[in-house]
């Protein structure tokens, strides 16, 4: 296997390229979370009240809750196919740093599930009557937030690989851990929608991302090794 | 004495809190002891099984 002999960073690049290439063959893996996101957002006006002033008040919260639920749903596909065909086990045997390879897989997963949400979020925000001027902040915040969620979620997905129950268990593990992301992200979005500076919560989201980037790959690697034993 | 139980008009709140606390403490003690009993019985069953099937059965 070529992965075993190249430099670690090149190996990670190969994993990333492979996952992206595979996604073009399983296109629904990319589109389903976006459709789910739009559907959940549609539930709120129906459940609450289509009054424009109310919708503008809850816009930031609706976008964030829908985006987090949708990327939570996508987490399940992060390792599943690779466990079924044995690729994940092969990755642990290459001798390359497993944390780095899993980080590459997580980045690929974020490009496929987080990035489409970044593009879809302004559509929902505008449908809820939010000011289009807030879109830059909204997209930055969603990009940072879904990235943190993918990283923390990769640990949860790895922990539930070897267990009997899948997706509900995964949500139980991951949801409490990502509440800070929701708090900072929704706050940044709400500030921008009211025409105020959202710098503070955006920096906090960035800090969360750096922390997650440095810690979670090692936790994921440990979790994958435990699950595959 | 009845003034003590009346808790200055907050009787329902104070006594329900203490009742819940008592319930949680009793549950903790009961479930810890029960877990030990269950584990002990299971270990003894496993021992008896291995003694009756093993070569060193007496």
């Amino acid at each position, binding site marked *: 296997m070529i992965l075993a002999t190249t430099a670690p960073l090149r190996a990670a690049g190969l994993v990333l390229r492979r996952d992206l290439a595979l996604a073009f063959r399983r296109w629904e893996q990319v589109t389903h979370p976006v459709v789910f996101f739009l559907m959940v957002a549609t539930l709120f006006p129906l459940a609450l009240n289509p009054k424009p002033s109310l919708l503008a008040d809850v816009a930031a919260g609706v976008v964030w809750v829908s985006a987090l639920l949708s990327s939570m749903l996508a987490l399940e596909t992060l390792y599943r196919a690779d466990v079924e065909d044995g690729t994940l086990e092969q990755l642990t045997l290459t001798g390359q740093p497993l944390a780095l390879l899993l980080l590459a897989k997580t980045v690929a997963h974020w490009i496929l599930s987080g990035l489409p949400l970044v593009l879809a979020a302004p559509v929902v925000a505008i449908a809820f009557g939010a000011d289009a001027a807030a879109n830059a902040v909204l997209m930055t915040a969603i990009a940072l937030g879904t990235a943190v969620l993918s990283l*923390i979620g990769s640990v949860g997905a790895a922990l539930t690989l070897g267990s009997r129950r899948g997706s509900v268990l995964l949500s139980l593990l991951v949801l409490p851990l990502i509440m800070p992301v929701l708090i900072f992200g929704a706050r940044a979005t709400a500030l921008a929608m009211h025409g105020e500076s959202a710098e503070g919560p955006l920096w906090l989201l960035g800090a969360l991302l750096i922390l997650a980037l440095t810690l979670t790959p090692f936790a994921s690697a440990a979790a994958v090794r435990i699950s595959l034993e | 004495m009845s003034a003590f139980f009346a808790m200055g008009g907050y009787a329902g709140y104070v006594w329900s*809190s203490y009742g819940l*606390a008592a319930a949680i403490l009793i549950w903790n003690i009961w479930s810890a002891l029960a877990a030990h009993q269950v584990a002990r019985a299971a270990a003894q069953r*496993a021992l008896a099984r291995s003694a009756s099937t093993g070569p060193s059965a007496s």
Partner: protein
Amino acid sequence: MGTWTWFHKLSSPPHCYRIAGQLIPWFAIPAALLIVAGIYGGLVRAPADYQQGDAFRIIYVHAPAAWLSLMCYTVMAVAAAVGLVWRIKLAHALAAATAPIGASFALLCLATGSIWGKPMWGTWWTWDARLTSQLILLFLYLGYQALRSAYDDIGKADRASAVLAIVGVVNVPIIHFSVNWWNSLHQGSTVLRRGGPAMPASMLVPLILCFFGFTFLYAALACVRVRAEVLRRERNAHWLQDLAGRRGRTESAT
């Protein structure tokens, strides 16, 4: 050198089982005395609060429960890390024993906080920073227990839940900070004064007694549960035979 051999002796299952059993009365008796004294002091001897009247007496079960729920999570995560790094089964047993105790006290803290909130705030629940972070802590416990119960193999459940406990304990201060930050933006500071350095001694002493009483109670409960967890991990070990034999003799003697 001496401490290391002692440590090794302790971490061997039969010694651990025996020592935990011998420790139980040393924790349980002080726990009972301290809790009874603390509750008596809190309900009878402490004067009513000048603002909250007798409703403040809920603090004697609410605050120690809050303390235990946080302490248990820390103990659980440290034990899990020790078990994961040095592959010590006893540490995993301690983590598994601590989780249900901590979860039950997180629940008690939430319930009493909500009951206390009714006369003070006028509603059963407000999204107060402390109540909200306590609720998230309860969710963390529930996730941990759910992951543990999803595995049939106890060794795998130990290691997988250990990773989750470590990730969780890194997150606890972040959750705490973010919830405080969120709360300070949306609400003024809470009207409820929950203890503080201004407390007179007649109120403070029973509270301290309750804190120590609850902590000793945790230690006693953990000893009982650790014994159960050790047994679950050592089903077929030969030392259990001695245990069963001794038990059989005492039963036939009575």
